[in-house]
C-alpha cells in the first residue's frame, strides 16, 4: 500500500460543496496544502468555483478571485504583475480551472500567458467535459465517450493539450491523478519552486458525468493511469519528458467498465480506442526515450 506523504496544514476546509465522493475536492486539498498560505488564487467558472462555495464562505484559506471562464491565465498574470509591483515576488499565483476553461475557451489566454512565461501555477482539473453544466463535451472529451452533446459517443479524439503546451517551451508541465496523491504533492512542490509558467493537468473522473459509482473515483483514476489512458509524466522546458509512475500494465477494459459513458461501445469501437491509447503511449515513450539530456 502506498503511503500518502503530504502535510495537511488546513488550507482546504470542510464544508465545501463538492459531490460526495468527488476526487476534485480531494485533489484540491492536496494542492492547496502543498502550495501553502503565501498564495493568491484565481478560479475560473468550473466545478472548482462551486466546490469553494458561495460568498462569504470559502473552502480555501487563500484569497481567490472568481474570474471569467476564458481568462483564468490572463487574470493570474494580472495578479502576479500587481504583486511584483508591490515587491511581493515570492507569492505564488495559483489558477484553478476545468478542462472547458483550459482546452476550449481559456486556451487563447493560457497560450498567451505561456508565451510570456508568466510566473503562474496553472492547475487544470480535467474531467473531460463540461460537467458543472450537466455533462457536455469539451475538446478534452475522449473518443467514443458519451456526453450530453455527444449521446452516441464523441467521434473525434481528445485534444492533446500537453503537446500544445510543450510547444510553448514553458519550464514545467505535468499530469497527475487523485490515485497518486504523493506524486501530486511532489509535482506541486516542484512546480512552486520554478519561476515561469507551470501547468499541471489532473485527471478527475466525474461521478455523475462519467457514470462512476460514488466510491469508485479513485479506483477509476488509478485504472486510467495503469491502462495508459492517462499516463503520469512531466515535461521540463518543453523537451525533457520523464515518466513519474510505472504504468500501463493492463488493457483499457477495466477502466472503461467503471464508467457508464462507454457502456455503448461495440467491440470495434473498443478496439479503436485501445489502438489510440497504444499509439499515444508509444509516442509518449518515444519522447521519454529520445529525451535530450
Amino acid at each position, binding site marked *: 500500500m502506498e503511503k500518502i506523504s503530504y502535510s495537511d496544514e488546513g488550507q482546504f476546509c470542510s464544508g465545501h460543496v463538492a459531490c460526495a465522493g468527488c476526487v476534485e475536492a480531494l485533489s484540491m486539498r492536496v494542492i492547496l496544502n502543498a502550495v501553502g498560505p503565501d498564495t*493568491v488564487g*484565481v478560479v475560473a467558472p468550473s466545478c472548482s*468555483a*462551486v466546490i*469553494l*462555495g*458561495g*460568498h*462569504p464562505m*470559502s473552502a*480555501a*484559506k*487563500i*484569497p*481567490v*478571485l*472568481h*474570474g*471569467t471562464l*476564458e*481568462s483564468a*491565465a*490572463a*487574470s*493570474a*498574470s*494580472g*495578479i502576479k*504583475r*500587481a*504583486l*511584483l*509591483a*508591490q515587491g*511581493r515576488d515570492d*507569492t505564488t499565483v495559483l489558477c484553478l480551472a476545468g478542462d472547458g476553461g483550459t482546452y476550449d475557451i481559456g486556451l*487563447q*489566454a493560457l*497560450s*498567451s*500567458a505561456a*508565451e*510570456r512565461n508568466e510566473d503562474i501555477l496553472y492547475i487544470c482539473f480535467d474531467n473531460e467535459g463540461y460537467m458543472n453544466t450537466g455533462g457536455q463535451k469539451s475538446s478534452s472529451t475522449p473518443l467514443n465517450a458519451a456526453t450530453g452533446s455527444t449521446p452516441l459517443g464523441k467521434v473525434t479524439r481528445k485534444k492533446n493539450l500537453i503537446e500544445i503546451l510543450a510547444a510553448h517551451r514553458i519550464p514545467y508541465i505535468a499530469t497527475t491523478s487523485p490515485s497518486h496523491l504523493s506524486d501530486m504533492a511532489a509535482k506541486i512542490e516542484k512546480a512552486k519552486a520554478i519561476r515561469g509558467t507551470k501547468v499541471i493537468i489532473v485527471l478527475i473522473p466525474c461521478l455523475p458525468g462519467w457514470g462512476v459509482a460514488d466510491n469508485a473515483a479513485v479506483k477509476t483514476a488509478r485504472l486510467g493511469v495503469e491502462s495508459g489512458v492517462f499516463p503520469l509524466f512531466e515535461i521540463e522546458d518543453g523537451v525533457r519528458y520523464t515518466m513519474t509512475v510505472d504504468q500501463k500494465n493492463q488493457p483499457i477494459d477495466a477502466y472503461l467498465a467503471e464508467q457508464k459513458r462507454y457502456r455503448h461501445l461495440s467491440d470495434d469501437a473498443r478496439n479503436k480506442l485501445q489502438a489510440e491509447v497504444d499509439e499515444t503511449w508509444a509516442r509518449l515513450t518515444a519522447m521519454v526515450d529520445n529525451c535530450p539530456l
Partner: protein
Amino acid sequence: MNAPAFTDNVQLLNGNHAVAWGVRLAAPDVAPLYPITPQTPILEKLIEFQSQNTFDAELLTPESEHSAMAAAIAASATGARVFTATSSQGLLLMHELLHFAAGARTPIVMFNVNRTPASPWGFWPDQIDSLSQRDTGWIQFYCENPQDSLDTVIQAFRIAETVNLPVMVNHDAFYVSHSVEPVSLPSAETVKDFLPRQPRQIQLGDGSGRSLGAPIDQASWNLTRREMDAGMSLVEDLTAEVGRSWATLTRRTSAPLEQYQTDDAEIVFVTMGSMTGTARIAVDTLRERGVAAGLIKVRLFRPLPAAALRAALMDVPCALVLDRNYSPGTGGVLHQELKSALFGMAGAPRLYGLLTGVGGVNVPAETLEKLAADYSDAAPDNNPIWVE
C-alpha cells in the same frame, strides 16, 4: 492644497501622445496593452517611455483586449493602479469584462479612441463603440482636444480611486487622436500630489484571506448594484470638485458640463468630443450674425449630469443635439439621453436629434450654422434626423 505649480512646459502633442503623457505622470503600477488602430500610439509612447526609464509600470502585452482587461481587473483587485487603452473592436471584445470590472469595483482607468465598429470595416471617428457600453457601470468622459484628454485622464484616476468604479475616457479617432496641438504638461510633482496613493478597502492578498466575486444570493447581488448606484451618484459632484482642484493647479477649467455662450442663448448645440470645437466656431460665427447661439459640451456622459443639463437648458427655446453615433432603431444616443433628462420639464427646449458625422463624415462649421438656421423656427420633431 500646495501653492499653484503652474508650468510653462508646453509641447506639441497629438491626442494619443497627450494621453500617454498623462498616464506617465499618473504612474500606474500595471498596464496591460494590446494594439489597435487608432489607439496604438498610446501603447507605443508608453513603451518608449518605459525604454527611457521614465515609466516603470509592469507592462503586459497579452494576445487580446479581452485578456488585457482580465489582467487589468485582476491587477486592480490586487491593489495596483492600472491603466489600459483600446478602441472600437477591442472595446467591444472586452464587453463581458466591462461589466465585470465595474461589478468588482476595480478603479481601472481606460482610454478608448472612438472608432467605427465593423461591419463594414472602417477606422473613422464615431462614438457608438463606447456609447453602446453605457450600461456596463463605467464612468465615461468625452474629450474635445489633446489638452482635454491629458487633463481628463489624470483626473480619471482620482475619480476612479475615490468611488472604486472604473473610468473610460474617450476621444475621437484622428480628429483628436492624431491631431497635433500645443499641450501644457503639468509637473510630475503636481500630479503626484494630485493623485495620492490610498490603500484600498478590499484587496486580494492583503492578508485578510478574503476572496472576490464568489457566487452570491439574489439579495446580495441586488445590494451590489445599490452600492454601485450610491457610488455613481457621487460622481457628478466629484467630477466638479476634482475639476476645480485641477484648475487651482493648472488654471484650466474642466467640469461635467461645459457651457459656451449659453447665458442668453436662443439656440444651443449639445455636443460630445471633437464636434465641440467645430460648434464653438459655429457659435462665434452665428453670434457675429446676431444669432443668440450657445453650446453645451457633455464631458461627463456616465453618470449623465441630468440635473445640470436641465438647469442649462431651462427656458432655452431650441436645442440641437449633435450625435456622431447611431443606435439603430432609436437614433442618436445623446439625443435619447437628453429626451430622458428633459422629460416632463416645464420650459424644456424643442429638442432636435441630428445625426451628424456618423461614420466619421466631416461636419464643417458651415453645416452647423445652416442647421441653426433650419431649426430655429422649425416644427417639433422627436425623431432622429440624418444630416447630409
